[in-house]
């Protein structure tokens, strides 16, 4: 059995203190520590952990994305995304909305008079998209509700037609007999 596996909590606390003291005494950098083996045998399990960690990382870890480290809101479904996006769009101040409208108006005017550069054309499209979303945030939910009602009526109408067809065919069959 290895020495580190027999350690009790109290021993680990002692080792932690010992490890810290040793580290401060030696004053060695990460890189130097990663190549030293004497401290491992001296301090045991705890130092082995620290040693492994140093070896895993480069002195300057410059590659990673922060996105992978954090929980992402995968639980949002499309309906929730739409609802919450509308809530966000409702938060635009009146002044901000006016600024967007003014920017859109100026670009639209320029488009009709002299035409837009490619960069302006892209800006025009994005501002238009933002204004559509702001408008959707104000009345979209009500429109969605009306759409649901219309879809419901259409389905009901189709069901009625189907029942009528079936009744007619039953009626015709009875007469033939």
């Amino acid at each position, binding site marked *: 059995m290895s020495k580190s596996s027999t350690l009790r909590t109290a021993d680990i606390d002692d080792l932690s203190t010992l490890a810290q003291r040793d*580290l401060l005494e030696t004053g060695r950098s990460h890189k130097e520590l990663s190549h030293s083996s004497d401290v491992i045998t001296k301090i045991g399990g705890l130092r082995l*952990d620290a040693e492994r960690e140093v070896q895993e990382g480069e002195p300057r870890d410059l590659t990673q994305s*922060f*996105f992978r480290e954090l929980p992402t809101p*995968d639980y949002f479904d499309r309906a929730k995304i739409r609802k919450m996006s509308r809530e*966000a769009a409702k938060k635009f101040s009146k002044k901000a909305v006016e600024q967007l409208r003014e920017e859109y108006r100026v670009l639209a005017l320029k488009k009709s008079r002299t035409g837009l550069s490619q960069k302006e054309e892209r800006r025009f499209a*994005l501002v238009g998209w933002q204004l559509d979303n702001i408008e959707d*945030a104000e009345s979209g939910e009500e429109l969605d509700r009306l759409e649901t009602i219309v879809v419901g009526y259409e389905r009901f109408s189709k069901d009625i037609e189907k029942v009528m067809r079936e009744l007619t065919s039953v009626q015709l069959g009875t007469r033939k007999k």
Partner: protein
Amino acid sequence: MTWIDGVLAVPTIGISINMPLSIVLNLNHHLSKFFDNIAAKHKKWKVNQKKESACEINADDYTYKIARNRMSIGFNYQVEEEKLPGAFPVVTFPDVQMYSDLIASTEAEFMELLTIFDGIKGIDLNFIGIVATIELDHDNLPPGVSRLMTHLSKPWGTDLSEFQVRLTARIHEGEGFFERCHHHVEYNEDKKEAGFKLVLDWQRVYNEPSSLSSNSFRTKFRECLDRALGYFEKIGEGDLIYE
């Protein structure tokens, strides 16, 4: 004001650091005051510490990660679903805020964390990251994102039905630093109800590490935020080179 303000978007702020082992091994001691602040400020909080040299704190909508080589704070909405017997579950929606407001409050949280390390010498800053995690409706993508997707699907001449793409590009070379962005795009036509995920992880990487302090960080962060938001706007507009 950015287009991201009008959609469901949450921020993360992160830094890459070099923390000397003498500080790592005393991490709990340094963070104890911060834990107290968290406990006083947040209703629900939890500290996960898998090893001595790193810890994760979940406090209401924030997730803090502190390790030898990284520190980050991410914001996430908590949507609570109450299951009732014999009835549909009741969903409680959080108060949705604009990305600009969320990044400001996340910055304040981050500054509070950094002040804990003020006066402790030896922590070096390598890079600063500003992330926007954006959930979109596939049928209503901003023009620039639509353009990017059309560009990515060009070799097949048809819309892509499923993708999970990560693209990292160096987007600017500055004096003593460069800027890059990790772009993560995810969509599956068979799981339309899951939405369209776009993550923009903008980073400024310094050629030489510099000593970390909350004061010097604040100035650097403001510069980075302007640059990051400017780039996110370019993505929304599609103002990249497609031809």
